[in-house]
């Protein structure tokens, strides 16, 4: 059966609450600030909100349910999306269907996490059953160690070099310098990247994100509602989602996008080369390469060569992670699954200020989440198009 498009549904009111390396506040506090920010941007009162979805790692013992009472919301549509780096796109596509079907009129999609001095360590120790059974007893390197293995294998199979990964990190740092809210404020040179402190070979310091506190939010509503409120908005041209794909592969060199990529472009009626910018989930640069391949910009293993010939900065010919991505703007827990999407909404509505890609109309946003054991389980992607 052909999939229904998202006609008449739009996404708007992108908000990023500036990140902090460590915070004494709670996830509730960060989520409240993002929710307030997105409602204010749309001129809405909390009581006018009838749909709400949240993603967070540090909300425990609360869930979206607890937050309704905590924040005084009375939604008729509620969701909690524990999908880490894929949660932004997945929140978007679920909210869009709810609005399209009339189950809700205005859905706020929020992600936020705090970062206390010891929260990263305690998050790791309770991340998943497979992780505590079968990955953390082996050196307790956390995601760094898992992605070191994937990167090692990727480098062996596809002749990628550390410079290839470095090019992604250096370009994103350039982009981050245009983003006043980025956690990283200093330029990064290739030399500094290559000489950085090793973390889990071949991964070194600048291949890793900086865990921090922060929150991101946006609203999904009908197009006429956005027009009525005079809000700049983006249309949703296509989305995909997939979990636990390629389970038989001995190590992850591809993600679930490969199963659905034709569906994505078919739904959006466009092709990779039509994208004005690409926001990949960049917990590690090898994962950005994997997405660039799996989303059809080049063949499997071709990303190093593809990127060697391209400029990934805001003013370049392949604008990528325009706000610096998580590698340079910081990873605020589950908000890391929203950062690329929220920035893409700003880009195609021409409200990105310092990081604005001139004339950006179409953006591809990709999400990747949850290292349950040895690989990321969730993958998702969306194509947004500006209304201008």
């Amino acid at each position, binding site marked *: 059966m052909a999939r229904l498009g998202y006609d008449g549904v739009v996404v708007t009111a992108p908000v990023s609450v500036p990140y902090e390396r460590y915070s004494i506040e709670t996830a509730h506090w960060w989520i409240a600030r993002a929710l307030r920010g997105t409602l204010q941007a749309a001129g809405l009162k909390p009581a006018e909100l009838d749909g709400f979805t949240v993603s967070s790692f540090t909300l425990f013992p609360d869930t979206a349910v607890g937050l309704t009472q905590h924040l005084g919301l009375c939604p008729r549509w509620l969701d909690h999306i524990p999908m880490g780096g894929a949660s932004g796109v997945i929140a978007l596509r679920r909210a869009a269907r709810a609005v399209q079907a009339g189950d809700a009129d205005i859905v706020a999609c929020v992600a936020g996490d705090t970062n206390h001095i010891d929260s*990263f*360590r305690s998050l*790791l*120790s309770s991340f998943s*059953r*497979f992780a*505590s*059974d*079968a*990955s*953390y*007893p*082996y*050196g*307790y*390197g*956390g995601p*760094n*160690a*898992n992605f*070191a*293995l*994937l990167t*090692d*294998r990727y480098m*062996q199979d596809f002749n990628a070099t550390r410079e290839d990964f470095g090019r992604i990190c250096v370009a994103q740092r350039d982009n981050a310098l245009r983003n006043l809210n980025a956690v990283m404020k200093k330029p990064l040179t290739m030399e500094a990247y290559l000489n950085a*402190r*090793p*973390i*889990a*070979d*071949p*991964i070194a310091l600048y291949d890793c994100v900086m865990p921090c506190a922060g929150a991101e939010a946006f609203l999904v509503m009908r197009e006429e509602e956005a027009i009525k409120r005079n809000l700049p908005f983006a249309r949703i041209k296509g989305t995909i989602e997939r979990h636990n794909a390629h*389970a038989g592969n*001995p*190590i992850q060199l591809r993600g679930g996008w490969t199963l659905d990529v034709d569906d994505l472009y078919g739904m959006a009626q466009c092709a990779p080369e039509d994208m004005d910018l690409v926001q990949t989930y960049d917990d590690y640069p090898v994962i950005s390469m994997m997405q660039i391949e799996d989303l059809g910009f080049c063949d499997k293993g071709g990303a190093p060569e593809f990127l060697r010939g391209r400029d990934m900065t805001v003013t370049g010919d392949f604008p990528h992670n325009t706000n610096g991505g998580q590698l340079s703007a910081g990873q605020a827990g589950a908000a890391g699954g929203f950062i690329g999407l929220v920035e893409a909404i700003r880009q195609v509505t021409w409200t990105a200020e310092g990081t604005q890609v001139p004339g950006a109309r179409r953006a591809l946003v990709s999400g990747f989440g949850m290292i349950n*054991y*040895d690989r990321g389980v969730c993958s998702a992607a969306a194509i947004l198009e500006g209304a201008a």
Partner: protein
Amino acid sequence: MTDPLQPPVKKNPQKRTVSPTRPPESRSRAALGLTAAAAEGRFALQCCAECGAVQYPPRDACCACLSVALDWRDVSPKGQLIAETRIRATTSLYFRDRLPWRTGTVQLDVGPSVICHVHGECEKGARVELWNRLDRAGQGVLIAVPEERTPNMQDDPQLRAMTSDPKHRRVLITDGRAPNAPALTKALLAAGAASVFLGEGETWRPYPERTALEALGVEFLPLDVTDTSSVNRMASEYGGKVDILINNARFLRPGGVLARGDTGFARDEIEVNYLGLMRLAQAFGPAMCGRTGDGVNSAVAWVNILAATSLSNSPEMGCFSASQAAARALSQSLRGEFRTSGLRVMNVYVGPTEDDWHQPLPPPKVAPGALARDVVSGLRNGLEDVYCGDVAKDMSLKFARDPKVLERELTMGGET
């Protein structure tokens, strides 16, 4: 090739002893199947009883057919090291003290990919074998080792952290006059033990083996496990130098309850076999637990030599075996109490031994040399449970299969 491990340098008493730390201990109940197999040194994975799929990590249902009939079966441990890393940063205090730590992905011939520890001699892309070992948290973990054995492979720091290898360690054997003491001493020295201390209870009685043992360089020390002050005196002097304690002290008289007219021998059995263990643990346990992070000759293992009939009793040695069962139960408590330090309790279950007291029992019997070999290999493999001799092995299989059936077999009366 692994560089041979060098003997420890003399300890600087002004420096702080490294605190005991452990790798992560938390596991799901399903994952404890790996630990149970590691305790006996077996490589086993979950296999679906319905579709035969081999899976890892352990689950509660088969990921191929959703059956919940999952068994742990010994499967081929062979595979290929397809990716590797050296972890150089971690939030775990245990691994921080031991960086860099090598881990990798092994694709097993039986299917699953496994994240595992990697022995220093494994080359990337090479064929490897996985060993299932207990780590210092007492949990089963997998380590990739080269397919071919090499001379010093036991000395690899990551592998050594998962074993109780006697090399360069100091061992106390609590009863230096037991029939198995000479064989144990020789096997431990041959395995590279730095020194062997032999406890001696009734020092005034002559002991013909003494001269020969002293010629090997071992030290006899006064130690009577029935005497609290004797045990405490020894512990205060030698407790900080004992890296492996082997409790072979034993009082044994044959017979069940009705074969004896009173509780006299039973008191002696409890005094030596049960309370003796308790006294030793109270005196030596704390010092050993405090030294589990102490470098090359850290404290690693507490060994109890127990009768296999401690698992399930029969009248031939009924009263003695009851005291052995008490000691076995106490060893389980000790496992829990030593847990936070990483000090391992290894129980060696022995069938009837080749000695005077077992003379009326039929073969097969365990010779002292066979016991010594099993103790040393158990230490080198970091085991928790060793079944020594054919009778003990047979009994452990029957005990695992159905303890009630075993009990009935052992209590049905002799050959009819």
